[in-house]
């Protein structure tokens, strides 16, 4: 089975290297697909479908597979690592040529990835990394750089506010990598401006309701000193906007609101003038993932991490982008 598909793999790889594989954002890329009757088979183990970001990621992988004429074996683990492990085991049994994995957690992958390696199947990780004893257990990790996202948001706010702001930071789930890194990047970006003060930094657990509750409380504690809100995701930013409005403030005008993710509803909020800026955390990893799969199958050595470039949207470029949003 595997040997049979080798020729097709080579064909696909050629098609891919022919099309420019620039790791830049959405769409683009994508070869003409493998010719011939049988198809290249790739397994994709997804964590779940609990939010639009993840759904968009899944759709991106599915669409890219269809575009390239690759047969995709898709497994939704519904938030369970055990389900991901058994899905990978069944991918091996089905003789897939490569596996794309969006790991639920960082640890506990050693054993199963060794089985995959023994079967000589390359693994491409998407959006989250793993901690394994042997770095050759996976080909590469394709993910956004959360620190860079935080830094972009911070730099934008420094520029927008003229280097003077009283900031409320709404952190993501305590201990989660995106929360830690987005905080680190943002705080590094404002560190050079002594008048950029973080008045309070509390977790809203990436939830809209918690973002609103926390913001309600912090408005009472800090009042008019608040001139900016930095939220680690769009959901919390929307919650904060609702709380600000209820308190008679004007989010987007007298309070600058900055967030990360670039979801469709955030673009709507920018258009309405209530959100000032969102840094995209692009879930459309499909094209890059299949580029990496093709290279790995060709035997090319890949860097251990490929960074998905993220873009920043504010009132200048968001309205034009809104119709293109897929998530």
């Amino acid at each position, binding site marked *: 089975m595997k040997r049979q598909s080798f020729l097709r793999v080579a064909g696909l790889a050629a098609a891919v290297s022919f099309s420019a594989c620039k790791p830049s954002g959405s769409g683009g890329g994508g070869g003409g697909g493998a010719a011939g009757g049988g198809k290249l088979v790739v397994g994709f183990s997804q964590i779940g479908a609990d939010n639009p970001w993840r759904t968009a990621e899944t759709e991106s992988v599915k669409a890219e597979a269809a575009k390239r004429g690759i047969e995709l074996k898709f497994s939704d683990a519904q938030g369970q690592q055990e389900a991901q492990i058994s899905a990978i085991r069944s991918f091996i049994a089905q003789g897939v040529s490569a596996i794309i994995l969006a790991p639920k957690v960082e640890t506990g992958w050693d054993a199963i990835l060794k089985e995959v390696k023994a079967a000589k199947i390359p693994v491409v990780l998407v959006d989250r990394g793993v901690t394994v004893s042997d770095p050759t257990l996976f080909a590469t990790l394709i993910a956004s750089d959360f620190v860079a996202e935080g830094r972009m948001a911070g730099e934008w706010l420094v520029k927008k506010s003229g280097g003077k702001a009283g900031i409320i930071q709404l952190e993501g789930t305590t201990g989660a990598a995106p929360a830690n890194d987005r905080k680190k990047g943002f705080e590094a970006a404002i560190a050079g401006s002594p008048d950029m003060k973080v008045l309070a930094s509390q977790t809203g657990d990436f939830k*809209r309701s918690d973002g609103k509750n926390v913001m309600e409380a912090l408005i009472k*504690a800090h009042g008019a000193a608040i001139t900016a809100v930095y939220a680690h995701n769009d959901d919390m930013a929307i919650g904060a906007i609702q709380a600000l409005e209820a308190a008679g403030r004007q989010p987007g005008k007298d309070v600058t609101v900055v967030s990360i993710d670039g979801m469709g509803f955030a673009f709507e909020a920018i258009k309405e003038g209530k959100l000032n800026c969102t840094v995209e955390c692009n879930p459309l990893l499909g094209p890059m993932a299949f580029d990496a799969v093709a290279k790995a199958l060709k035997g090319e050595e890949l860097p251990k991490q490929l960074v998905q470039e993220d873009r920043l949207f504010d009132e200048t470029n968001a309205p034009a982008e809104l119709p293109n949003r897929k998530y």
Partner: protein
Amino acid sequence: MKVLRSTLVWPLVALVVLLVFNAVASPGFFHVEWKDGRLFGTVVDIFNQGARVPMLLALGMTLVIATGGVDLSVGSIMAVSGAVAAMQVNAGAPMVQAVGAGLGLATLLGLVNGVLIARVGLQPIIATLVMMVAGRGLAMLLTGSQMVPFANRSLTWLANGSVGGLPVPVVLVLGLAVVTGWVLRRTAAGLFIEATGDNEKASRLAGIQTGGVRLAVYGFSGFCAGLSGVLEAANISAADPARIGDTRELDAIFAVVAGGTALTGGRFSLAGSVVGALLLQTLTLTLYNQNVAPAVAPVPKAVVILAVCLLHSPRLRARFGKRTQPVAA
């Protein structure tokens, strides 16, 4: 009545200590102003945010725990009712119908818990654990795992509006608590619940339909969770099936226990649970106000919770001494 009063003392003491701390440490904590026709301030937030989830869930949970059971499914039931209400208004249904549908389904799920426990004989922790998993799944299934935003003014009013200057949820929930307390203490219902939790066999032999009592308390707990889910969705104008109510059952259990209702069943204090919920919410807002780093915030929280439980424990031991067997196993 004496017992009721004395169990209420400890959460009240903890609450007062916390409030005194805030009076000293956070200036403006008690500042309440009149803004846009309603009260505005941290204390109002404590009541508002506290009423919407912990207090409401604790109302139902108190009665469940009084029968010697526990309801772990309330967070998931919140997700279901919020999703149903949001989808109903999006389909053009009037607010009352949408809320009714959400509450109806939530009550039904609560009754399913009751049937599994009272008729099939499952352990409450297992039956409601099943519902906790199944309810979340149902909410995800109904919504296709996506957040359901809505723009229905009257539904958002339920959480964001005000009546006589007070937030609607506070009026609704305190009203529900008073009515529930009044009904339970003015009729024999409260006694039946306590008797069922105290000694089910003896109660049945005395002619109490303990199965019916259990069915009713789980149904009521489902109803409270349903209302909480609707209010949470109304608050942010969107139902979030994956995350509404997540782990909030633990807040409810804490509020009940802090309020002096023992997990062993047989006695309950609704007023205590209300105070317990307020204590929990005050604690949360105090940590925000003091800007305690989120990573370490659970520690002071745990210390206060432990302190309240320790304050209760001598009473518990005294109570164990008086009774022979608190739970019909």
